[in-house]
C-alpha cells in the first residue's frame, strides 16, 4: 500500500479546505485517531523553539465544540498550500513537506496575509483511505495580530 503524490496532495488540500470552511467534523474524519496537531515557531528573542498549539484528536474535538461560544477574529481564513517534498518512511507512511500562506479576509472582503510557514504532515494509508496522522505547522510569522482560536 504505497502513497502516491496525488493522494497525498488531495488529502492535504482537503484538510486545508475543511479548516477554511470550519467543517470540523469533516476535518477530524480525515485524521487518524492518533492524530496530533502542533504549531511551533522559533523565537529569535529567546533563542528557543516554542510550541504555541498542541492538541491530540480528542483535544481538538473538545476545542472545536466550544469555538462557536468564543469572541474571535471576524471573517474567514484561506490556506494556500504548495506541496513540496514527499518522503516515504514506510509502505503505509509518508511525510509531506509543504509551504503555506494563510490569508485572512475580513467582513468587508479585504484580504491580508496572516501567516506563512511550512506544514510537516505525516500521512498514513489505511484500509479506509489516506489519513492525516500528524501535522506540525512551523510558523515563520510570529506576529499574528489578535491571534486565532483555530489552528492555522
Amino acid at each position, binding site marked *: 500500500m504505497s502513497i502516491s503524490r496525488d493522494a497525498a496532495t488531495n488529502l492535504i488540500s482537503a484538510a486545508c479546505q475543511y479548516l477554511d470552511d470550519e467543517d470540523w467534523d469533516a476535518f477530524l474524519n480525515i485524521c487518524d485517531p492518533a492524530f496530533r496537531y502542533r*504549531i511551533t515557531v522559533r523565537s529569535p528573542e*529567546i533563542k528557543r523553539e516554542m*510550541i504555541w498549539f498542541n492538541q491530540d484528536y480528542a483535544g481538538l474535538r473538545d476545542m472545536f465544540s466550544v469555538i462557536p461560544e468564543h469572541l*474571535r477574529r471576524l471573517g474567514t481564513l484561506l490556506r494556500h498550500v504548495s506541496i513540496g517534498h514527499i518522503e516515504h518512511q514506510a509502505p503505509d507512511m509518508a511525510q509531506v513537506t509543504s509551504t503555506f500562506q494563510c490569508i485572512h479576509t475580513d467582513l468587508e472582503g479585504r484580504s491580508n496575509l496572516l501567516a506563512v510557514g511550512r506544514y510537516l504532515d505525516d500521512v498514513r494509508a489505511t484500509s479506509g483511505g489516506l489519513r492525516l496522522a500528524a501535522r506540525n505547522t512551523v510558523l515563520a510569522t*510570529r*506576529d499574528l495580530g*489578535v491571534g486565532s482560536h483555530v489552528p492555522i
Partner: protein
Amino acid sequence: MPSRNSIDWNAPPKLPATHYTRGDIYRDEAIFEDEQERIFKKVWRLACHESEVASPGDFRTLEYAGTPLVVVRGQDGVIRTFVNVCSHRGARIVHQPAGNMRHMVCFFHLWTYDLTGSCTSIPRPEAYEKQNLNKDKLGLREVRTGRKCGLVFVNLDDACESLDDYIGDALEAFENVLTENDLEVFTYQHATIDANWKEWQETNLDLYHEYMHVALRKTQIDPKAMNQRELKVYPKGHIRGGGSGYSANYDGYSGWAKREDSKALRGLTASDFRFTHIFPCSSMNARGTIMRISTFTPLNAHQTRIEWRGMSPRSDSEDDWAMRTEHYNQYWGPFGRNVPEDLMAAELCEWNFGPAAARYQIIAREEGMRGQDDGFLRAFYQRWGELMGRSASGEGDTP
C-alpha cells in the same frame, strides 16, 4: 429605557468626571504625542527578564517611545541600556533581537563601542582632529536601568526617581514567585493590534469583562465569591488583584484538566490567579502553575505592540515544561482561548472610538473596591490625568 437622540448621545454622561472617559483620548494625535512626552518618556517600563541577559555580552533589543534600545550585560556583570543609535551617522548598531556580543560595532563606518557604551575605536580618527573631535566624546547615550525581583526596567528620563521609589510595594504579590522559582523565559510572543494603547490596557484593568471570556465563565466567575475579591490600588497608578476570591477551577472548561498543587509555582496554589500592573504598561500575571510578564509599546494613536513572556523554573523537567507550555497556551498563547479575545475586544472598541462613533466610556461600577468594581480603571485614569495635566473625561477642556 428609550433610545437617545444625537444631543443626548453626544452629551457627557451624568456621572462624576472620574467615572467616564471621553473618546478623543483614544484617537487624538496631539494627545498621543503628549502621552509619549509626559508619560512614556518619564516612567519605568519593563524591558526584559534578567535571565535573557544572563551572561556577559548577552543583549536584548527593543523599541520604546520611538527610541531603539539595547539592554546588555557588561563584562563586569552590570546590566546597562543604551540608545541603539551610532553617535556618528545615526545608524542602528545592533540589529538582532537577542544574542551575545563582545562589543558593539556599527556596520556603516565600523565605529566601535564597548559594553559600557564608551566609543573605543574610530577608523582613521586623525581626520577629526581639526574639529577637536575624538572617541572620548562620542560614547553612546545610556538610559537609566533598574532591576527588581529579576525584572529589568528602563526609563528614558535621566532625572527619574529610582525604580524602587517608583514601584514601592506594588510587586508584593509577586516577590516570592519571582525570586523563589529561579525563573527563565520559556515562551515569548508579540502582537501588533489596531487599537489605541489605552483600549488594550483597559482590558487588563476591567474585571467586569470576565464575562466576555468563555473560559473564565466556565472556570472562575463565581458571583458568591465576588465580595471576597479585593482590589488594591498603590500610589502612582499601580494595581493588584489576587488573594481570597481569586481562584479558578480549570477542569470546568471542555478538555482541560484540573491543575495539581504539586506543580504550582512556589508562592502559589494551583487554583490561584493574581495580577499586578505597574503603570502604565508593565504587568505580571500568574495562574497557579504558570506566570507571565508583559508589556506594550504604543506605536501611534491607533496601533499598539504587545509583548508577553511566559516564565518557568529553570529546573523544570521535560514533563514539567510540557505541562507549563500547555497551561500557558490554554489562556495566553496566540492560539489560546483568552488573549485573542482580549485583543479582539481592544480592536472592536477602536472600530468605534477611532472614527468617533463612540463618544464616552463608562467606568462607573462601584462595589466597594471588591468584585468587579471599576476602581482599577479609575485609578489608571487618575494617574493618567495627573501626568497629562488633563482629565480623561474632558472635564475642564475648552469645548
